């Protein structure tokens, strides 16, 4: 603005042409960002659509209730793999949830900041360890005969569950820790000032306040390991029939998909698609029901400041964000 122009001018005024150029640039970049946002969800729609297209036709009562038919025969089901997956995930959760949640409670409520940051770093590194590495480690320690004093000596459900549990633990530890840190310190102080013992405050007040967030983290971890294949290849191995004991190989949905997909039989390919659909529906169902159960109950809304997000809201939001990041991994 060196020379004042004849028309009304003010600082920052630009010519019509420049204004259009800027508007055009802005629209273009906004459009590109929008495309990127759409690209994020497109695979979900594509994968889901394709699985429905390929697999839905094979879903029938037999598929969910029968064992596989003998090789070469058409029909049969994968009930053993569905049940096997449930057993593996349940066992893994029984091991992983207490360790993860109690570990996080220790970090936020008891430990010093230095120890906590060391464990946090360790857990973050573990979260980045590829699951096949967990598989090999579990194989070496739990499956190989004489691999270690804990070795079962052969492929087993226990080894599979432990491998899955070790994937769950750092995940649950980190999500739980973050929601516990979101619990305002005022609650801890108020409880301490009432003369309540420390461990009771941790369990009955702090953990309870963050309960929805903790549950969210746990379910996300469950959803994550339910689809893990690599660690199970080395541990649970898979089974074409019922498993009689936890010390034997056991079938699981991801393993069944793998086995069927690499087989030469058309009918097995068909069933692999159907099994993949079932697995995706399970993970999807877990996520959707999670949203449903963790939504803010209308009746529990505080009257005074219902428009302000509560601590619990923040907790759920954080976990959901983290969870999304985890799912992408």
């Amino acid at each position, binding site marked *: 603005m060196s020379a004042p122009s004849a028309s009304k001018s003010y600082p920052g005024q630009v010519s019509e042409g420049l204004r259009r150029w800027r508007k055009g640039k802005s629209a273009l970049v906004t459009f590109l960002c929008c495309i990127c946002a759409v690209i994020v969800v497109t695979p979900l729609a594509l994968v889901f659509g394709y699985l429905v297209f390929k697999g839905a036709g094979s879903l029938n009562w037999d598929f969910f209730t029968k064992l596989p038919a003998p090789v070469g025969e058409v029909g049969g089901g994968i009930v053993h793999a569905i049940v096997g997956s449930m057993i593996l995930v349940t066992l893994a959760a029984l091991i992983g949830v207490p360790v993860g949640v109690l570990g996080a409670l220790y970090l936020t409520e008891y430990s*010093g900041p230095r120890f906590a940051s060391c464990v946090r770093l360790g857990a973050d590194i573990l979260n980045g360890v590829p699951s096949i590495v967990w598989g090999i480690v579990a194989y070496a320690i739990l499956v190989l005969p004489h691999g270690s004093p804990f070795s079962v000596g052969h492929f087993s459900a226990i080894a599979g569950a432990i491998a899955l549990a070790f994937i769950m633990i750092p995940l649950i530890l980190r999500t739980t820790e973050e929601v516990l840190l979101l619990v*305002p310190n*005022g*609650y801890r*102080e*108020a*409880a*301490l*000032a*009432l*003369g*309540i*013992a*420390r461990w*009771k*405050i941790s369990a*009955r*007040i702090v953990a*309870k*306040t963050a*309960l929805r967030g903790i549950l969210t983290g746990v379910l996300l971890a469950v959803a994550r390991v339910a689809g893990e294949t690599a660690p199970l290849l080395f541990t649970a191995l898979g089974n074409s029939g019922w498993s009689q004991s936890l010390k034997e190989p056991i079938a699981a949905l991801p393993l069944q998909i793998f086995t069927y997909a690499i087989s030469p039989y058309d009918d097995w390919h068909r069933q692999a698609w159907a099994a993949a659909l079932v697995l995706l529906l399970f993970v999807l169902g877990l996520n959707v029901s999670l949203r449903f159960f963790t939504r803010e109950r209308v009746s*529990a*809304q*505080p*009257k*005074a400041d219902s428009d302000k997000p*509560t*601590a*619990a809201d923040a907790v759920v939001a954080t976990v959901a964000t983290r969870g999304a990041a985890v799912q992408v991994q």
Partner: protein
Amino acid sequence: MNDQPAALPETSVKATLPASAYMNSPDRGAPPPAASQPKPAIDARNVNIFYGQKHAVIDVTLGIPTKSVTAIIGPSGCGKSTFLRCLNRLHELIPGSRMNGTILLNGDDLYAPTVDPTVVRRRVGMVFQKSNPFPTMSIADNVTVGLRLNGVRDRAFLRERTEDALRKAALWDEVKNDLGKPGISLSGGQQQRLCIARAVAVQPEVLLMDEPTSALDPIATVKVEELMNELKRNFTIVIVTHSMQQATRVADQTAFFYLGRLVEYAPTRELFNNPKQKQTEAYITGRFG
């Protein structure tokens, strides 16, 4: 003030307080035996508090009379909240904090090595600046949480104590039909009175209040101040406040802290009308702080 002997072993705070202790003490709030010179409820002698290198409270000696309201005033950072928090041993949760000196609560040394801080906190309740009812609990559960989590199971007793505490906190009539609703569904002023009820329900001997009305509107503030007048019949109250008007309205005696030191301590009227120290006068006339 110093006429009592050093704490005898049998008068020191019991290491553990059984749940029944709460049930068999109906008249903890009864006035002490009449004496010419009533013993102070809290007797702090040469208290020094440090946060790392910072000397936050310097050599404070202060006797707080029983069944009265004592206000602590002073500019921000003068150590008044720190001093308050060392009366229920809450300050020691901050890493790096140290304290020396003696604090006697009705004759018992709160800092004796055998004393469990948890037990101290049952005898010295606290209300905070920001109301903080537990969000997962109903109104009734918020009131009784201190009892329930210390092992009291008797439902009839808990119900009775709920009503008693809510009445003492002047909240009963407003919430008696909504005891099952979440504590955080109340308004800000009601939440603060709920926190007072929660502190009162464990029947402490002393009630500490750390700027209890600074987050409340004027009407809620008046209610809490009126409440303090009621509560002092049963409890010894120590309040930290930024508002000198509040101190003049509620306090029987007022202590002025400045830069970690106790500058002046006198009956409220005297301290405000006729301050002995220049610093006190400068502060109450608004020349600094």
